[in-house]
């Protein structure tokens, strides 16, 4: 039972959450009573030395009751879900509860009908099918309890505290960092934007190009023959300082605030959120396909049951006709 109640209302979502209802308790009591009475009568019947075989009168009565309960379990809930008449709030949950109760009682009656004879015949296959169906239903209910809780944990990771999409928030942060850093690099590397376009600011300049953009500061004399085209050592040193990205004590990139850190962390966070969303999607598929698997198993079990009934009728009717 969940007891997480604070001043601001209910809080918490525990794994072992359980909210019993009076109707649910009554259903469990009925199931236990019916199975107990049927089992008790069967024990008394066998100990009294009566015919303890599946095709005995009691065996056939148990088979009929089990089949009827199984068919009711198969049809009632499906019909109620699809029906649009006389619907009440909470009615479907009660119907689901009866669906499970009828299936468990049906399995119990069919198991008692077998009298422990589990030969490789049609009836045994039908019983195994019924057993698998009930187990798959119970496992499905367990998944229904656990998987939404797991999904909520993943959604919590994918949303911010305000409920916004975290991928979008992280992307915006990343974009801001990239824009800031790109502007820092451009502002740093390009003294003359017109002659040295931003796209080329990271490319080392050739001596010829260097001369081209330097000609604004070093006025070209009328006689070029007296000027060396090679850059001077001072010029080379200045250029290297501008274009080098290796850690340098004098580099402007080491100036506090020159480049925003955190790109790698944001990308890691983005990956975490994407993983959470993938898991959420996986959990959604698990619940959806488990339900389909249960329906498929119900159809297979129904087929096995019909096969067994036809086989049993043949066994009973053929001697009567002859």
């Amino acid at each position, binding site marked *: 039972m*969940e007891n*997480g*109640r*604070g001043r*601001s*209302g*209910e*809080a*918490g*979502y*525990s794994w072992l*959450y359980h*909210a019993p*209802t009076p109707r649910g308790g009554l259903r469990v009591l009925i199931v236990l009573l019916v199975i107990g009475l049927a089992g008790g009568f069967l024990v008394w019947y066998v100990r009294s030395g009566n015919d303890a075989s599946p095709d005995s009168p009691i065996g056939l009565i148990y088979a009929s009751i089990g089949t009827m309960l199984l068919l009711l379990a198969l049809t009632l809930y499906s019909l109620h*879900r699809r029906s649009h008449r006389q*619907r*009440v*709030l*909470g*009615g*479907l*949950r009660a*119907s*689901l509860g009866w669906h499970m109760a009828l299936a468990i009682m049906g399995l119990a009656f069919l198991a008692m009908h077998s009298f422990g004879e589990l030969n490789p015949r049609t009836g045994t296959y039908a019983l195994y099918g019924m057993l698998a169906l009930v187990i798959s239903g119970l496992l499905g209910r367990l998944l*229904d*309890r656990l*998987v*939404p*809780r797991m*999904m*909520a*944990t993943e*959604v*919590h990771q*994918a*949303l911010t*505290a*305000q*409920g*916004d*999409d975290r991928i979008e928030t992280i992307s915006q942060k990343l974009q801001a960092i990239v824009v800031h850093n790109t502007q820092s690099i451009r502002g740093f590397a390009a003294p003359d934007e017109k002659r040295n376009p931003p796209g080329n600011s990271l490319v080392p300049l050739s001596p010829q190009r260097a001369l081209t953009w330097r000609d604004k500061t070093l006025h070209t004399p009328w006689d070029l023959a007296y000027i060396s085209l090679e850059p001077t050592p001072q010029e080379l040193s200045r250029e290297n300082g501008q274009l080098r990205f290796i850690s340098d004590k004098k580099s402007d990139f080491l100036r506090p605030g020159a480049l925003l850190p955190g790109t790698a962390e944001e990308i890691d966070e983005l990956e975490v959120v994407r993983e959470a*969303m993938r898991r*959420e*999607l996986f959990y*959604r*598929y698990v*619940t*959806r396909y488990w*339900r389909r698997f249960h329906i498929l198993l119900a159809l297979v079990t129904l087929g096995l049951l019909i096969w067994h009934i036809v086989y049993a009728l043949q066994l009973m009717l053929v001697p009567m006709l002859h």
Partner: protein
Amino acid sequence: MFKNKLGQRAVRLHKTGPQVMQEVHACIGCNECLLACPALGEPLTIDVLNRETLGGPISRPVAQFARACYQCGACVAPCPVGLHRDAMMMWLKVRLLRAGWGE
């Protein structure tokens, strides 16, 4: 849920808080989603559910319903205005989870 190009019913992921708020405001209160719900244990009015989905304290019946909801999506198809009650319930679940962690 919606049909993709292959005609199969695809699975939708969660919705964000603002999207959920938008859907709550678009709800016409017809109760069709609650009538189709196999997880609803005790009667609950849609206006209380909508109000508590939007914010504020979560009452015991709404919290129990939110925890019991198993995201089957049965509430989506009957909605006459095409809202996703399952996404609203997921939002309530996340709120409960965060409140339990003291966030």
